[in-house]
């Protein structure tokens, strides 16, 4: 009991630290990436919320999927996601990640990101304005603080479901750490 309490509190502290310090992986998967520089730099400056860029997957906590995903990118994205260290969060950015958006009838883009990777939160819009991005990220922070952002756990639990969907689109996917 007492032990659980300590464990729980420690987890809460870690969640709190995580919500205050999020490193976003610098991977421009789609055209939404053009609204990220304004969000990161002087005008909107997301670093005041403790969100900063990270250069490599190993150092990142958050994978921002900025827009449509061609199947070729999806493969790299899955490798990237599997390289990241838990806790890790996926944010779907733009309408294209939700339902294909503008490219609903394109033969080369996926239509629902959450079938392939566990998405914590979607930011709608084509493309979302910086204010919307900040709003979405603040919501994500709140979710992390409350311990609700558990995508990486869902990924582990439903590994088969995700792998099945991934392989349905991509064929063989290498599984490495």
């Amino acid at each position, binding site marked *: 009991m007492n032990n659980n309490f300590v464990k729980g509190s420690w987890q809460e502290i870690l969640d709190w630290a995580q919500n205050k310090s999020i490193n976003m992986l610098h991977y421009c998967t789609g055209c939404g990436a053009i609204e990220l520089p304004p969000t990161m730099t002087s005008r909107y400056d997301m670093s005041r919320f403790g969100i900063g860029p990270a250069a490599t997957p190993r150092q990142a906590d958050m994978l921002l999927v900025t827009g449509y995903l061609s*199947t*070729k990118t999806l*493969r790299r994205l899955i490798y990237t996601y599997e390289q990241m260290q838990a806790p890790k969060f996926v944010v779907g950015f733009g309408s294209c990640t*939700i*339902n*294909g958006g503008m490219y*609903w*009838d*394109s*033969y*080369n883009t*996926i*239509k*629902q990101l959450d*079938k392939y990777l566990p998405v914590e939160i979607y930011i709608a819009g084509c493309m979302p304005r910086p204010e919307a991005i900040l709003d979405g990220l603040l919501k994500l922070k709140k979710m992390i603080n409350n311990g609700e952002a558990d995508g990486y756990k869902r990924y582990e639990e439903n590994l088969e479901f995700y792998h099945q969907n991934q392989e349905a*689109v*991509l*064929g063989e996917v290498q599984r490495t750490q």
Partner: protein
Amino acid sequence: MRNEKELLELINVHLDPPAAEIKRKQNVSVSIKQENLIQALSFLKSHSYQHLSTISCVDWLDEGEFELVYHLFSYDDYINISLKTRIKREPGVFQTAKEIWPVAEFYERDIHEFFGVEFKGNDNLEEMILENWQHLPPMRKDFDTRKFVNDNYEWRDYNGQKHTD
């Protein structure tokens, strides 16, 4: 510095095109028999048409032909030539223009990927844009992208409402 008319004259004299016309100001369109095309390209290149903008391919399904369009531009004349030729859709084989413009290698690779046209003499025709593509080349008119999407991807379900055009 030629104008459009002088250019047409030059082309008519040397290249024997079936059709040549002035489309707009500074834009000329020339049809060439496929066996003359490579020679026409090198002729025009030696007459200051040094800039190859791109190579376009059009799939004329009903006529059973592919149309290849070479867009050339001259920095002396400021005229754009669209050099067109038609090849049979089956088997869809043509000569490479790689010897004249090395960069054509990549335009041809692109056309090969999206239309399935073979270019003889260009050995670098592997997949460049797509990955593990098993179906018809996607830009062909008989490839139906909506059917493909319906077969391969699932739509998000909005309370039973389907996505419509």
